């Protein structure tokens, strides 16, 4: 084979196998679960409670990275009329770079195909069980143009070839009491599973959303401390003596009152 032809072949192979230029960006707080960003052209599945917030966070991550000249950072949202635009803006999304198609009806594959060529991320809630032909066509288009397909809704699990699944675990809203306060944020553990997060997957504790509407890493829950008189310390309980020899004035609460993940932890801070 002539050398020039070989070089051409090598170049075309290189071109075909190399992933498109750069990863699709995610919010800073999501980097522990999606290191480096989303793989262009891949499909991401969201389900379970909290899928809507995760969708907003992914859209915000893409949208906030666009340039001022309109290059990049566009997101298409198909079939999600209840998309919380204000919440997305709170997480950092630019509303003017969102394209909403609230009611695509049965033309949703055509709508997604049109958007996949132009935007970096399409959030799709399929209104019906996706057919194999539509999935093949849209996956191929997404790969070709480096667009991330994010699936949500009841049929998200039926989409074959999803490389990354995100869900929320151990959620707890904070700020609301019994007739007073207001919602200030939610502690949640984001779990990433699938081929792009091999093994047991990746986990991160986040405020999703935080008190100002953003997404922020959450500090691990520390066992609450309680002030006790020295006499109340049980025999045999681990007591750290102070430098001057006097017994400690605090002790950790009993283990069952703590978060199970940290019950075996350090004890006294």
């Amino acid at each position, binding site marked *: 084979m002539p050398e020039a032809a070989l070089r051409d072949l090598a170049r075309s192979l290189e071109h075909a196998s190399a992933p498109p230029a750069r990863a699709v960006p995610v919010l800073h707080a999501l980097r522990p679960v999606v290191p480096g960003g989303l793989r262009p052209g891949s499909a991401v599945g969201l389900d379970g*409670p*909290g899928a*809507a*917030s995760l*969708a*907003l966070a992914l859209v915000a991550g893409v949208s906030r990275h*666009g340039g*001022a*000249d*309109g*290059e990049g950072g*566009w997101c*298409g949202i198909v079939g999600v*009329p*209840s*998309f*919380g*635009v*204000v*919440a997305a*803006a*709170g997480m950092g999304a*630019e*509303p*003017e*770079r*969102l*394209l*909403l*198609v*609230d*009611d*695509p*009806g049965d*033309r949703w594959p*055509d*709508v997604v195909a*049109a*958007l996949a*060529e*132009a*935007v970096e991320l399409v959030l799709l809630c399929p209104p019906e069980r996706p057919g194999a032909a539509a999935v093949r066509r849209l996956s191929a288009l997404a790969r070709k143009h480096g667009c991330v397909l994010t699936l949500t809704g009841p049929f998200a699990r039926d989409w074959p070839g999803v490389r990354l699944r995100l869900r929320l675990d151990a*959620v*707890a*809203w904070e700020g*609301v*009491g*019994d*007739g*007073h*306060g*207001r*919602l200030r*944020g*939610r502690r949640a553990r984001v779990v990433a599973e699938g081929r792009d997060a091999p093994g047991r997957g990746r986990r991160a504790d986040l405020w999703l*959303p*935080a*008190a*100002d*509407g953003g997404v922020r890493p959450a500090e691990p829950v520390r066992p609450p401390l309680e002030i006790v008189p020295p006499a109340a310390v049980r025999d045999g309980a681990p007591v750290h003596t102070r430098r001057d020899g006097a017994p400690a004035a605090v002790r950790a609460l009993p283990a069952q009152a703590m978060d199970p993940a940290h019950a075996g932890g350090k004890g006294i801070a």
Partner: protein
Amino acid sequence: MTRVLAVWCPDWPVTAVGVDAGTAGAAVVQGRIAACSAAARAEGVRRGQKLRDAQRRCPGLVVRERDTDAEGRLFEAVVEAVAELAPRVEVVRPGLCAIAARGPARFYGGEEALRVLVQDTVVEAGHDCGSGIADGLFAAELAARAGQGGVVVPEGGAAAFLAPYPLSVLDRPELADLLARLGVRTLGAFADLPSGHVAGRFGTDGALAHRLARGEEPRPIAPVRAAADLSVRAAFDPPAEHAEQVVFAAKRLADELHAGLAAGGLSCVRLEVEAGFADGHVLRRLWRHDGRLSSLAVAERVRWQLSAWRDGRPAAGTDPEGIEAPAEEEAVWGGVTWLELAPDQLVPDGGRQEALWGRTAVTDRIARAADRIQGLLGHGAITRPVLAGGRGPGEQVVRVPVGDLPPANLPDGPWPGRLTAPAPAVVPVAAPEARLLDADGEPVVVSARCAVSAPPAALLVGGRPAAVTGWTGPWPADERWWDPEKARRRARFQVVTETGAAYLLAVEHGHWHVEATYD
């Protein structure tokens, strides 16, 4: 000098909102009187007054929001009546139109005869008006407002006619204020100033005002002559069977039309779309638009027009798509043979923002994708959100179809009782019903004084009960209480259930709804 006949309908903004001259009424814009009826003026209501002051002087004042669309629409009746007598009517603004008087005056036997005839015709059409003839539009307008139903100012007498008027009629408050401090209080005194000095001191605009005051014309009357030249037309051979073909052609025509308008420094606020069919039928519709019609918007209007035609026919099986009709149905009219777009109401292009996409410029790729989706689903199917003011999570977002300008007058201001961050992630379009029960299984009731009957214990959404672990509220929202038709009185709650879900509930008239979910 051209002789101009002006037809002036008094207090047109008030007439347009359905208040007659005998009733004390006013049209308001942002809490200030934009126009008031004669009866209200007799009570001391003035233009520019605060609504509160006006209502103090005239407690029975009928107040309506100003509706510029209605003004333009209703004025068409007046213009049509005048056009019966003399063609080429120039609409100066809704409420004032003008024709060149010389020809018609000769035809109808004198200027006074023409003036009375025009006035009678418009009054017969159902609108009170004054008509006046003078040299130039400015003097003609004042002549129409003078006396009982207008006067004829003889040729060359404009300067003398204008002399006693105060400077406020020039509609240049800053100039009038400055001149008043210089001791110049009437148009006559202003006209006596040497024109070179006026131009040197007050610039172009001052020189223009000076020309007006001297009874000279700032510009000749400009009837809508350019319309015929700027209209664009496409023929279909063979006749277009599908609306899609016509819509595509319309988009191209609209681009041509815009290029022609831009070259003339004009923009068009009303567009006439004509479609001709093979058997000679012609569909003609006028479309009005607030801003400049983008080519996509024009194409969409052509689509509406064609689908309206299909809906209007007594055809047996009209499909809901309304567009792709079977060939045998098309045979009734034989398909579209030509399409013409004619700009009908031209205004000088005041330099509107050219980027139709708001702040962020749009790339060709995005525009192409949006184009395809609009071709599939219609103009309004793909939108861009714009954040606006409002209290509830759904009220804070306005969805603007891609290609349209965002609405200019978005509500702004402090929103006491606005929901605080974080905002809910799921905002359903139609709030689903919910039930909030207390420990005894009775519905939780919120009294008029915002007292909660019992702490909520269980929430039922879609039939599934969940125990309430935390709740807060009520946060009352009493909106538009001054308008009985639009008034809404709600109380909002945030509720967290045992499943870890958080809801924004609203109770209105005793019914609970899930306004949004903090998913």
